Protein backbone atom coordinates (compact mmCIF):
# COMPACT_ATOMS: atom_id res chain seq x y z
CA UNK A 1 0.00 0.00 0.00
CA UNK A 2 1.27 3.44 -0.96
CA UNK A 3 1.15 5.73 2.09
CA UNK A 4 2.47 9.19 1.21
CA UNK A 5 2.58 12.06 3.67
CA UNK A 6 -0.25 14.57 3.45
CA UNK A 7 1.97 17.10 1.73
CA UNK A 8 3.29 14.56 -0.77
CA UNK A 9 -0.30 13.65 -1.60
CA UNK A 10 -1.04 17.34 -2.16
CA UNK A 11 1.98 17.71 -4.47
CA UNK A 12 1.01 14.64 -6.51
CA UNK A 13 -2.59 15.74 -6.79
CA UNK A 14 -1.68 19.32 -7.70
CA UNK A 15 0.83 18.24 -10.33
CA UNK A 16 -1.44 15.76 -12.15
CA UNK A 17 -4.45 18.07 -12.01
CA UNK A 18 -2.52 21.14 -13.16
CA UNK A 19 -1.19 19.31 -16.22
CA UNK A 20 -4.73 18.49 -17.33
CA UNK A 21 -6.06 21.99 -16.57
CA UNK A 22 -3.19 23.62 -18.42
CA UNK A 23 -3.59 21.53 -21.56
CA UNK A 24 -7.36 21.61 -21.76
CA UNK A 25 -8.05 25.22 -20.77
CA UNK A 26 -5.53 27.03 -22.98
CA UNK A 27 -4.63 26.87 -26.67
CA UNK A 28 -0.95 27.73 -27.03
CA UNK A 29 1.94 25.85 -25.36
CA UNK A 30 3.18 28.97 -23.58
CA UNK A 31 -0.27 29.78 -22.19
CA UNK A 32 -0.72 26.12 -21.17
CA UNK A 33 2.53 26.20 -19.22
CA UNK A 34 1.68 29.46 -17.50
CA UNK A 35 -1.86 28.40 -16.59
CA UNK A 36 -0.67 24.99 -15.39
CA UNK A 37 1.94 26.64 -13.16
CA UNK A 38 -0.71 29.07 -11.88
CA UNK A 39 -3.08 26.22 -10.99
CA UNK A 40 -0.29 24.30 -9.28
CA UNK A 41 0.71 27.33 -7.21
CA UNK A 42 -2.95 27.92 -6.27
CA UNK A 43 -3.47 24.31 -5.17
CA UNK A 44 -0.32 24.18 -3.06
CA UNK A 45 -0.62 27.76 -1.80
CA UNK A 46 -4.20 27.33 -0.62
CA UNK A 47 -3.30 24.10 1.18
CA UNK A 48 -0.37 25.73 2.98
CA UNK A 49 -2.51 28.75 3.92
CA UNK A 50 -5.35 26.53 5.16
CA UNK A 51 -2.88 24.47 7.18
CA UNK A 52 -1.60 27.57 8.99
CA UNK A 53 -5.18 28.73 9.62
CA UNK A 54 -6.02 25.37 11.18
CA UNK A 55 -2.80 25.48 13.21
CA UNK A 56 -3.75 28.83 14.75
CA UNK A 57 -7.37 27.77 15.30
CA UNK A 58 -6.14 24.75 17.22
CA UNK A 59 -3.82 26.96 19.31
Amino acid at each position, binding site marked *: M*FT*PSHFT*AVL*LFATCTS*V*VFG*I*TQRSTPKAMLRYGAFCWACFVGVVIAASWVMYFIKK
Partner: protein
Amino acid sequence: MASKVQVPAKTQDSSPGFIYLALIVGWLVPGAGHLLTGRWVRGLLLFAAITSLFWLGIAMQGQLYAPNTGDILEMLGFVGDFGNGLFYAVGRMIGLGQVPVQTVWADYGTKFIVVAGLLNFISAVDAHNLRIGRKA
Protein backbone atom coordinates in the same frame (compact mmCIF):
# COMPACT_ATOMS: atom_id res chain seq x y z
CA MET B 1 -17.93 46.93 -66.81
CA ALA B 2 -18.74 44.26 -64.34
CA SER B 3 -17.85 40.79 -65.23
CA LYS B 4 -19.31 37.69 -63.78
CA VAL B 5 -16.76 35.30 -62.46
CA GLN B 6 -17.89 31.82 -61.85
CA VAL B 7 -16.30 30.14 -58.91
CA PRO B 8 -16.58 26.38 -58.94
CA ALA B 9 -18.31 24.99 -55.89
CA LYS B 10 -15.97 23.40 -53.41
CA THR B 11 -16.33 19.69 -53.28
CA GLN B 12 -15.77 17.96 -49.99
CA ASP B 13 -13.07 15.50 -50.89
CA SER B 14 -12.35 14.06 -47.48
CA SER B 15 -15.07 13.12 -45.03
CA PRO B 16 -14.34 13.84 -41.38
CA GLY B 17 -15.60 10.40 -40.36
CA PHE B 18 -17.36 9.74 -37.11
CA ILE B 19 -17.08 13.08 -35.32
CA TYR B 20 -17.43 11.63 -31.84
CA LEU B 21 -14.53 9.22 -32.31
CA ALA B 22 -12.01 11.40 -30.43
CA LEU B 23 -14.51 11.89 -27.60
CA ILE B 24 -15.14 8.17 -27.18
CA VAL B 25 -11.54 7.05 -27.65
CA GLY B 26 -10.37 9.83 -25.32
CA TRP B 27 -12.82 8.65 -22.68
CA LEU B 28 -11.80 4.99 -23.00
CA VAL B 29 -8.05 5.69 -22.82
CA PRO B 30 -6.87 9.00 -21.31
CA GLY B 31 -5.08 11.15 -23.91
CA ALA B 32 -5.91 8.84 -26.82
CA GLY B 33 -8.33 11.38 -28.28
CA HIS B 34 -5.51 13.91 -28.53
CA LEU B 35 -3.26 11.31 -30.17
CA LEU B 36 -6.03 10.73 -32.69
CA THR B 37 -6.02 14.42 -33.59
CA GLY B 38 -2.24 14.43 -33.96
CA ARG B 39 -1.41 16.21 -30.69
CA TRP B 40 1.16 13.70 -29.48
CA VAL B 41 2.76 15.70 -26.70
CA ARG B 42 -0.58 16.78 -25.23
CA GLY B 43 -1.90 13.23 -25.48
CA LEU B 44 1.09 11.70 -23.74
CA LEU B 45 1.07 14.32 -20.97
CA LEU B 46 -2.65 13.79 -20.38
CA PHE B 47 -2.16 10.03 -20.36
CA ALA B 48 0.67 10.31 -17.83
CA ALA B 49 -1.24 12.71 -15.55
CA ILE B 50 -4.62 10.95 -15.51
CA THR B 51 -3.18 7.44 -15.42
CA SER B 52 -0.86 8.38 -12.55
CA LEU B 53 -3.74 9.85 -10.58
CA PHE B 54 -5.90 6.76 -11.11
CA TRP B 55 -3.25 4.17 -10.26
CA LEU B 56 -1.92 6.18 -7.31
CA GLY B 57 -5.48 6.10 -6.01
CA ILE B 58 -5.60 2.34 -6.46
CA ALA B 59 -2.19 1.98 -4.79
CA MET B 60 -3.53 3.97 -1.82
CA GLN B 61 -6.36 1.40 -1.60
CA GLY B 62 -8.97 3.83 -2.87
CA GLN B 63 -12.46 2.52 -3.48
CA LEU B 64 -14.03 2.00 -6.91
CA TYR B 65 -17.72 2.83 -6.64
CA ALA B 66 -20.34 0.42 -7.95
CA PRO B 67 -23.03 1.73 -10.33
CA ASN B 68 -26.21 1.16 -8.36
CA THR B 69 -25.85 0.93 -4.61
CA GLY B 70 -28.88 3.08 -3.77
CA ASP B 71 -26.77 5.65 -1.91
CA ILE B 72 -26.83 8.96 -3.79
CA LEU B 73 -23.27 9.91 -2.78
CA GLU B 74 -21.92 6.57 -3.98
CA MET B 75 -23.80 6.97 -7.25
CA LEU B 76 -22.19 10.39 -7.73
CA GLY B 77 -18.84 8.79 -6.96
CA PHE B 78 -19.59 6.22 -9.62
CA VAL B 79 -20.17 9.00 -12.18
CA GLY B 80 -16.67 10.30 -11.43
CA ASP B 81 -15.12 6.82 -11.51
CA PHE B 82 -16.88 6.03 -14.78
CA GLY B 83 -14.86 8.79 -16.45
CA ASN B 84 -11.79 6.57 -16.21
CA GLY B 85 -13.11 4.48 -19.08
CA LEU B 86 -11.23 1.23 -19.57
CA PHE B 87 -9.24 1.65 -16.37
CA TYR B 88 -12.48 1.55 -14.38
CA ALA B 89 -13.69 -1.52 -16.28
CA VAL B 90 -10.37 -3.34 -15.81
CA GLY B 91 -10.23 -2.35 -12.14
CA ARG B 92 -13.72 -3.69 -11.49
CA MET B 93 -13.03 -6.87 -13.47
CA ILE B 94 -9.91 -7.80 -11.52
CA GLY B 95 -11.44 -6.83 -8.19
CA LEU B 96 -9.48 -3.66 -7.39
CA GLY B 97 -10.89 -1.01 -5.06
CA GLN B 98 -13.33 -3.34 -3.34
CA VAL B 99 -11.95 -2.88 0.19
CA PRO B 100 -14.01 -0.53 2.44
CA VAL B 101 -12.33 2.80 3.13
CA GLN B 102 -10.79 2.62 6.61
CA THR B 103 -7.63 4.75 6.47
CA VAL B 104 -6.96 8.34 5.52
CA TRP B 105 -4.86 7.15 2.57
CA ALA B 106 -7.73 5.07 1.26
CA ASP B 107 -9.94 8.15 1.52
CA TYR B 108 -7.38 10.20 -0.42
CA GLY B 109 -7.06 7.38 -2.94
CA THR B 110 -10.81 7.30 -3.49
CA LYS B 111 -10.78 11.03 -4.22
CA PHE B 112 -7.79 10.61 -6.55
CA ILE B 113 -9.74 8.05 -8.58
CA VAL B 114 -12.89 10.17 -8.79
CA VAL B 115 -10.91 13.26 -9.81
CA ALA B 116 -8.96 11.26 -12.42
CA GLY B 117 -12.28 10.27 -13.99
CA LEU B 118 -13.62 13.83 -13.98
CA LEU B 119 -10.37 15.12 -15.50
CA ASN B 120 -10.63 12.47 -18.18
CA PHE B 121 -14.11 13.75 -19.07
CA ILE B 122 -12.60 17.24 -19.55
CA SER B 123 -9.76 15.76 -21.59
CA ALA B 124 -12.13 13.80 -23.85
CA VAL B 125 -14.28 16.90 -24.47
CA ASP B 126 -11.12 18.85 -25.30
CA ALA B 127 -10.14 16.16 -27.82
CA HIS B 128 -13.60 16.42 -29.35
CA ASN B 129 -13.25 20.20 -29.65
CA LEU B 130 -9.90 19.75 -31.38
CA ARG B 131 -11.38 17.25 -33.79
CA ILE B 132 -14.30 19.43 -34.84
CA GLY B 133 -12.09 22.53 -35.05
CA ARG B 134 -13.64 24.45 -32.16
CA LYS B 135 -10.20 24.65 -30.55
CA ALA B 136 -6.82 25.05 -32.23
